[in-house]
């Protein structure tokens, strides 16, 4: 039998060499071989002298532990030092007299000796050739003596140049070193660099100390001018064609100098790691008062959700109410340990539709619930439900009859629910599942019609029968989908809501909504966001100064835009007036309708993008008046963003932000041991009930509603049902 072959990728990152594997290191310090007033070759900039270095470094296999480093330490030479040096060189030139190619033409040596002999022969009389003028250096001698240090030559640096390679095999380390030496061999001219390798243990230790700490202690004095160093003083240019060079897509303006630094202040919202003007990275932040509506764009998996999660946890800890729609459920799992603190537990709500065991405790929500509502709220509830379902089904403008039927059915049930609540039986309100019963069970509907106002009743008696055959299946399709999932049945199947977003707003709750794993998570998301909008608008009944600031994050705005072209625009324009700060996320801003896009961009006080497709990037770059090029955005690394915010009432230029993981920024608040207590607290906070109990009640809900309003049992359940349940 053949052994099974494991084709799974190894876990973790790429394999790193074992720490115990031997490493062979080659070290060399490059020093000028000749007096340092003689210049190296001036290499120019075309081609880039770093071309060879990049080519050499591209062959280094870092994945196997190889390394190759070149360090160039520079200390400027002051003008006074330079003048003194020049004076000494001139003095030496005077002493030497006329010279050529570095050799004296007068003085001692054979020429001087001949002069001495001639003088003795003539009895000391001076010959014309031994005149003082002959010993004076010529202008060319002086220029040669001063060499590259002539006045006006530009900046001069004292230089320390260290090369170091390391590999698991000594020959590999040596080969890399030879490559690096070859790179610098091209600088040979009137002067040249020669390698000086440390031999003794003390010299090796000194080299490594200089290499690692940055200590400047070159083996000998070597001053170099900018033309000699120019090729190595800058990062690789466009003339460096080697592929293995890190490059940015383009420039991003620096972060504003007055960008607040976040250390946990309650009036700030963390954005991520920002490089400030002093070169240090700190957590940049926007002010709560300035951040009214945010829009986050970019590719999936590039950190939009993580950035939102960091903001949500920070604001939750600072006492704000937050509402986080987490379509994939991963954010909630990551956030839980950071919210499991006694001071927060009473405020945490969790809506998790991923689990549906019969004894699983779940929260329920009835979008048609009229508890705490009045007759004037019926229209908002109807609109919320209709638009939510239409958005999830992507009806757009293509299903007007279905939309009308749904709205009418929702209206009817909302009115019935209002009556049920008024009669003290909120547990007999209709749910989304009763919409299907209303539309498909003629007897049930007709029995309840007398409970409705005449105008509403007239629709169902005169208009609806003509539409029913075509429109009803389109509407009931939604409920049929919901019926395939026990978790959705449990969530939508209870007449009374444990979840009420208006209460969450007014009492600073921390709400995480995770429709992941359910059959219709798009439907849940759409219904919840429309409900959020409705609840936000209902805060009109609260004086402005009493409205608690509530933060909401919603993903996949594109899906929401498909139902009602004005809905997202309304969120952007209206919710902030009622102290609901919404931050929307989407991968494709261009897929939004024009009206929605304009409204979102017009009203945003935070615009952020991670890496994006070129068209998307060009769209955002245009919004930033081309302070950032589309290429810059398309080449952003993972978890890096470019964003602009409102700061002190003015829009900033876009600046670069590095995303921070939750583990890093909230390291002091990681409390996995508190999760069991948090779960218990959520059960209490949301009045969660077992799935089995909710489903059992849902089975009888149609009959109980009918019995409540008509006093008679439902025809289909009267024979087998418990007679006590149908007596009002």
């Amino acid at each position: 039998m053949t052994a099974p072959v494991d084709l799974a990728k190894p876990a973790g990152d790429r394999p790193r060499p074992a720490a115990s594997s031997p490493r062979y290191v080659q070290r060399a310090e490059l020093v000028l071989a000749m007096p340092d007033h003689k210049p190296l070759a001036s290499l120019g900039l075309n081609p880039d002298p770093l071309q060879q270095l990049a080519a050499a470094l591209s062959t280094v296999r870092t994945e196997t532990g190889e390394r190759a480093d070149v360090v160039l330490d520079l200390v400027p030479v002051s003008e006074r030092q330079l003048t003194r040096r020049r004076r000494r060189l001139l003095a030496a030139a005077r002493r030497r007299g006329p010279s050529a190619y570095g050799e004296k033409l007068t003085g001692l040596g054979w020429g001087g000796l001949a002069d001495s002999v001639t003088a003795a022969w003539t009895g000391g009389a001076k010959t014309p050739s031994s005149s003082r003028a002959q010993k004076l250096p010529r202008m060319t001698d002086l220029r040669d003596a001063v060499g590259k240090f002539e006045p006006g030559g530009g900046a001069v640096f004292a230089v320390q140049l260290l090369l170091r390679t390391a590999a698991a095999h000594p020959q590999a380390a040596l080969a890399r070193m030879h490559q690096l030496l070859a790179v610098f061999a091209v600088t040979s001219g009137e002067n040249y660099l020669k390698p000086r390798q440390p031999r003794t243990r003390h010299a090796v230790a000194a080299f490594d100390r200089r290499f690692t700490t940055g200590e400047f202690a070159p083996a000998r004095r070597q001053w170099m001018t900018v033309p000699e160093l120019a090729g190595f003083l800058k990062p690789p240019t466009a003339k460096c064609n080697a592929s293995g060079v890190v490059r940015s897509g383009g420039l991003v303006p620096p972060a504003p100098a007055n960008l607040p630094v976040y250390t946990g202040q309650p009036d700030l919202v963390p954005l991520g790691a920002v490089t400030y003007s002093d070169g240090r990275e700190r957590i940049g932040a926007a002010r709560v008062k300035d951040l009214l509506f945010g829009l986050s764009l970019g590719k999936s998996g590039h950190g939009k959700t993580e950035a939102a999660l960091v903001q949500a946890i920070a604001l939750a800890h600072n006492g704000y109410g937050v509402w986080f729609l987490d379509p994939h459920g991963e954010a909630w799992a990551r956030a839980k340990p950071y919210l499991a603190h006694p001071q927060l537990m009473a405020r945490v709500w969790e809506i998790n539709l991923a689990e549906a065991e019969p004894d699983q405790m779940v929260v329920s929500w009835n979008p048609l619930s009229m508890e705490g509502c009045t007759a004037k709220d019926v229209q908002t509830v109807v609109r919320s439900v209709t638009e939510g379902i239409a958005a999830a089904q992507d009806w757009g403008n293509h299903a007007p009859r279905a939309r009308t039927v749904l709205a009418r059915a929702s209206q009817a049930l909302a009115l019935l629910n209002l009556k049920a609540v008024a009669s003290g039986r909120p547990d007999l309100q209709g749910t989304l599942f009763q919409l299907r019963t209303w539309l498909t069970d003629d007897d049930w509907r007709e029995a309840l019609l007398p409970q409705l106002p005449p105008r509403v009743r007239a629709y169902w008696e005169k208009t609806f029968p003509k539409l029913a055959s075509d429109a009803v299946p389109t509407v009931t399709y939604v409920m049929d989908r919901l019926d395939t999932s026990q978790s959705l049945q449990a969530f939508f199947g209870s007449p009374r809501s444990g979840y009420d977003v208006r209460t969450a707003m007014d009492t600073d709750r921390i709400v995480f909504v995770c429709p992941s794993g359910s059959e219709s998570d798009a439907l849940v998301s759409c219904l919840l966001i429309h409900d959020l909008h409705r609840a936000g608008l209902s805060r009109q009944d609260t004086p402005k100064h009493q409205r608690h600031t509530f933060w909401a994050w919603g993903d996949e705005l594109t899906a929401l835009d498909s139902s009602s072209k004005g809905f997202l625009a309304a969120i952007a324009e209206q919710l902030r007036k009622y102290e609901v700060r919404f931050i929307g996320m989407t991968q494709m801003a261009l897929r939004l309708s024009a009206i929605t896009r304009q409204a979102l961009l017009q009203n945003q006080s935070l615009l952020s993008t991670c890496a994006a497709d070129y068209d998307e990037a060009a769209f955002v770059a245009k919004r930033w008046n081309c302070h950032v090029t589309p290429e810059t955005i398309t080449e952003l690394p993972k978890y890096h963003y470019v964003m602009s915010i409102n700061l002190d009432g003015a829009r900033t230029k876009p600046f670069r932000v590095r995303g921070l993981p939750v583990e890093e920024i909230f390291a002091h608040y990681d409390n996995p041991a508190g999760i069991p207590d948090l779960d218990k607290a959520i059960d209490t906070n949301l009045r969660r009930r077992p799935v089995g109990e909710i489903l059992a009640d849902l089975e009888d809900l149609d009959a109980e509603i009918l019995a409540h309003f008509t006093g008679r049992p439902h025809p289909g359940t009267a024979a087998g049902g418990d007679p006590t349940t149908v007596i009002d």
Partner: protein
Amino acid sequence: MRADLPGRVQRFFDIAHWIAWSAPYLALLVLVGGIIAIAVALLRAQRVTEALADRVTVEVVPTSTFDPGEGEIGRWAHQLSRVRYAAAATPARGAAARLRYTVEDGTMHCYLEGPATASAVLAMPGFAEVEVRAARAEQTIQPVRFPSQREGKQ
């Protein structure tokens, strides 16, 4: 000649006497000078050690169209020389600016290092088309601590 000799001898003895008399003071002077020299050397060494222990690294990342002229590089060199002057209190041994070319994951990176007191100079873009980023080693974000809980926001 004979008359001169006693005078010279006398001068010699005078000098010898003066040296003998001032020897303790000279010894003390040499001792104090030595102590001062050692103290200055220790102080300088300490400053070097402190400066080397606290250095800043930024990554300089060029765009794909970065193409400087020699004049631009000359201006950049002058800016680079300010790194050392920004750490004027530190001896040159601990105040050098460092350009480091290294390879990470198969790509060549260029880093600029210097004493922490020169971090503002290091973070200042020297070229129009080169971006200055905090190096990974410098990404030392401190975890946040929240103030005591508030009762509610309005």
